[in-house]
């Protein structure tokens, strides 16, 4: 029993961390229409920077500053934001598929850099070593995991509420207008280039937070964690849940991560021994099929985006009901 609960805590922690990243992508794609094909670069920038700043001292590469944990997380977010700003300034003039190709390239370059720059972050061996905060009080076991889960859930709620307010505000209105018709938005006095960059950086900072939590949860990050498959998983979560709907983004994360975990377990248990090497590939195919299937048969996702409406005649309730309908 305790084994099951313990596993559920572990599962929920990872899923909640990924949900934060999916919410970041939802701001970019769901609300602004920015096709970020390199989610993992910003997730990874946050992960590496957080672990470099907050990790224990390392002999052969950068890092081990043992910064206070929240500061390390903020540093990770800053790193992701800086990378996004740089990439954004260079590529945000590109539209849809071209932006996707450019950002995908950035992510592959990021992974290659991390794999080869041993002096920077341990190269292919990865970056390990993180002294868990409050370890003396909480120990290493179940209690610690429970407290960490509570911390991650709190951050998920904070991000959820922040983004919820943001997309219901006039800022969110600008994002949607630019997503729908950039020329028309510009003719109404809005600056698409500035707004796109702001949304891109903000979404990436949120992905960086997810990366920082991920790296410190495992006390380890390596190039294997920033492969393109993670970008596709995060995209699948958003598409299944419903682009433009934050509740959908979180729901999609739990469904896809549950399916991923369950399929991994089932394959390792039931696939013949000689096929075990290839079960990962089967999972990749599944993710691809889910993305394509959803786009063909239910492109709006399980929880579609909702219109912001007036609820005419009831000014006091307009804002709230509009957002919850």
């Amino acid at each position, binding site marked *: 029993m305790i084994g099951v609960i313990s596993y559920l805590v572990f599962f929920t922690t990872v899923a909640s961390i990924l949900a934060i990243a999916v919410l970041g992508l939802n701001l970019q794609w769901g609300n602004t229409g920015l096709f970020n094909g390199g989610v993992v670069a910003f997730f990874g920038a946050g992960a590496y920077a957080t672990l470099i700043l907050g990790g224990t001292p390392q002999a052969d590469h950068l890092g081990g500053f043992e910064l206070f944990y929240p500061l390390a997380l903020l540093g990770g977010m800053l790193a992701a934001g800086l990378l996004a700003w740089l990439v954004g300034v260079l590529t945000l003039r590109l539209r849809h598929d071209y932006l996707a190709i450019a950002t995908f390239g950035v992510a592959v370059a990021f992974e290659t850099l991390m794999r080869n720059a041993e002096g920077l972050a341990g190269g292919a061996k990865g970056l390990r070593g993180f002294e868990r905060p409050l370890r003396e009080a909480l120990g290493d076991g179940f209690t610690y995991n429970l407290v960490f889960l509570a911390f991650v859930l709190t951050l998920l709620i904070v991000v959820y509420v922040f983004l919820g307010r943001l997309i219901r505000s*006039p*800022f969110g209105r600008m994002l949607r207008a630019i997503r729908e018709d950039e020329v028309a938005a*510009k003719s109404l*006095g809005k600056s698409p280039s500035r707004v796109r960059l702001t949304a891109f950086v903000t979404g990436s900072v949120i992905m960086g937070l997810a990366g920082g939590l991920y790296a410190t949860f495992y006390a380890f990050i390596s190039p294997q964690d920033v492969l393109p498959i993670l970008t596709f998983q995060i995209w699948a979560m958003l598409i299944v849940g419903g682009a433009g709907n934050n509740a959908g983004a979180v729901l999609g994360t739990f469904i896809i991560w549950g399916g991923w975990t369950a399929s991994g377990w089932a394959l390792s248990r039931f696939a013949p021994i000689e096929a075990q090497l290839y079960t990962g590939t089967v999972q990749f195919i599944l993710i691809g099929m889910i993305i394509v299937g959803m786009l063909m048969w239910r492109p709006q996702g399980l929880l579609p985006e909702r219109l*912001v409406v007036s609820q*005419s005649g009831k000014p006091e309730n307009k*804002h709230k009901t509009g957002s919850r309908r």
Partner: protein
Amino acid sequence: MTEPILSTRNLTRDFGPFRAVDGVDLEILDGSITGLIGPNGAGKSTLFNVLTGMLAPTAGQVFLQGRDVTGQQSDRLFAQGLGRTFQIPRPFGRMSVLENVMLAPMNQLGERLWGPILQPARMRAEEAAIRERALEVLEFVTLDGLADQAAAEISGGQRKLLELARVLMGDPSVILLDEPAAGVNPTLTRVLIDKIEELNRGGKTFVIIEHDMDFVMQHCDPVIALAQGKIVFQGTAEEAQANPVLLDAYLGAQVDD
């Protein structure tokens, strides 16, 4: 009435070897409803696009309220009081009609990333005021019943009215309308004309591209005709109807249309 609120000097725009707008000297008088006519391909829409900063001019200058605004882009020009609609309406489809209209006011507090977090009360108050005005403007263009509809779902004529409503929310002093009556049923056209004239009495200047000659002759003064990128006629509606050059360049071409 006599000051030009919008004018150009030698305005020219090339597309490769093709000169779409050719040395246009335009003077739009403050408080007028100017009709811009000409055969298809005469350069009317291109002229609109250059005037509103969506296309950079190849040569020449644009002046708005006496200031040289050549090369400024459409968002900055809108902020200075120049609004426009499009020949083919460009609604924000997956947004409600109300949201389409609420977008337009400039410098909303909540447009800043931290506005909703740091000053939620002030933002809500401002937002409530904007919503109220948006509903008024929608009522003005007779779309108030559709406020909660997705803009993608409304008819072509209603989209034209929605575009007018959006522009009005920004309270510009000059409004450029690109074929406001095209594809709009007679009832809605009537509504549109009434609204334009009402706004004009309130001091707004209009420049209207229109193919419907009855519309132009009844409601526009002066009338400017464009052919092959050049101004070929400028005068009152009566003069336009009596002008042989115009009949040749425009009305003649219109028959073949």
